[in-house]
């Protein structure tokens, strides 16, 4: 069993994963391009904050965020080589490599 008594953010942004860069900012690589976000934002939050609205190919057109809470799977991206990560659920970690996916 993991999870200590009172440990309320076992996998939050609180440093354990080195998620925050200097001054509360994070930088991630999106298709090789550096995109800056704020520490604590999800990958979807960083992408939207940078003006991107779509990042996944679907049968008809592009998709980005739809439900925002992990239900619809529209927002999937590949993170550090791992496919099928819901961008709206995953907190951005400094240095994350994010790639688009195509499904359909």
């Amino acid at each position, binding site marked *: 069993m993991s999870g*200590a008594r*009172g440990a309320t953010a076992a996998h939050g*942004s609180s440093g354990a994963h080195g998620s925050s860069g200097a001054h509360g900012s994070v930088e991630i690589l999106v298709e090789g391009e550096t995109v800056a976000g704020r520490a604590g934002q999800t990958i979807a*939050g960083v992408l939207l904050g940078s003006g991107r609205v*779509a990042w996944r190919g679907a049968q008809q057109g592009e998709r980005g965020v739809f439900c925002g809470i992990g239900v619809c799977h529209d927002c999937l991206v590949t993170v550090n080589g791992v496919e099928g990560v819901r961008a709206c659920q995953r907190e951005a970690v400094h240095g994350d490599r994010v790639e688009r996916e195509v499904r359909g």
Partner: protein
Amino acid sequence: MTRVAVLGAGPAGLAAAEAALAAGAQVTVLDEGARPGGQFWRHRPGLTDPRMQHGVRRFEQLQSALAGAVVHSGAAVWSVELREPGERGGAVVLRAAVGPADGARREAVVVEADALVIATGAHDLALPIPGWTLPGVTTAGAAQALAKRDGVSVGRRTLVAGAGPFLLPVAQSLALVGSTVVGVHEASRIGALAGGWLPKPWQLLGKSAELAQYAGALARHRIPYRIGSGVVRVLGDERVEGAVVAQLDADWRPRPGTERVIECDAVALGHGFTPRLEAAVMLGCEVTGDRRGRFVVVDDGQRTTQPRVFAAGEVTGIGGADAALAEGAIAGYRAAGLAQDDERLHAALRVRDRMRRFARRLETAHGIRPGWTAWLDDDTIICRCEAVAKRAIVERAEVPLRAMRLATRAGLGPCQARTCGRAVEAIVAEARVSATGVTAAGQAVDGSDSAAPGGGDLGFERRPLLAPVRLGELGGADRPTCGEN
């Protein structure tokens, strides 16, 4: 000492944990979110605007109570199981993958408890609309979550549409993160709103301060609020460029000739909420349904039809955060073994009963009406995952739901029909009615029961896994129960 597991750390789950701890139980809380709070508490000091968050004090109390519990955050619970008395006494067993969302090497966690409180909440119900797969269309909840949690807006000019008071905080949050809100379009007409609220306006009392505050925000940001109005088409090539709004009649059928185009780059849609029933269904708890949707059946003490299992919050009815808090407290006390007439339950029971009446008013005023299908085209995509159009569903409306799904793939994509389930049922029901020539005049054909004879067809709610996990993670857990559908 009674071991109580709580699935979900939103208002209901947190209140359950607090109550169970107060009653002396040993408590374990699991939630897939990176931190407790559920859909309601998401503010991030320093990252997001505190004006978007209500009830911060209560959240702080709940969090300090949690110090006495084991809390697994980032814990996607993919299986729940009842172990019958016999082998080491009866118990509830939960299995979770713990770590960053959808990570490849999450830790397998197994929690065993004497009682479980299911507090898995709900997600938005957004009805399909031609053009709704364009980037820039999100649920109202997504717009809210992205504003409250990430401090970003889904668009520069956002149109908010759907039904229910939830549209108001969404519009306010959008304005606070810098979007122009070009309008809030509430589908319900004055008749339904009056029918819902006017006979017992005092039931709005508990809510009126909050509602007045939103009304003030709308006025301050000059956001137009229209009733009996909705988005009937989203325009754009590669992303949202505008939306067609129209007046809706009492059954939400668009009124011909009332269409007009509004320029915008985002549309936030919320026609209500759908409870997350998977855990309750997996445990065999009874679920009842009518045209408003299906919910977990509970008794006065929030106990489900499985004696060890309690349920609280939006899984038992859509009543908002205050209802969830009260139900959670009752469930937590009862799960920890307190009697129903224990005086510690009194206050929560009173609030819950008042909030239940509020929930009924909400449904009367804002519940989905059957005429909405009139805004669909034959080629409107209904199932977003598999890009299944309305036409394909209508063509197979006569065959059993399961066969229709296999033939069209509607609802078989990665979201497992969570997004389209209700809409598919409504379209099937309507097609069946028109095929048999029965004019169900005045009868609401918006969902569940007509498509699910006897109301017992849980086709869309029965899911083999509660949360997405990778095959390797199933292998890593003891006795994986990747139950078949």
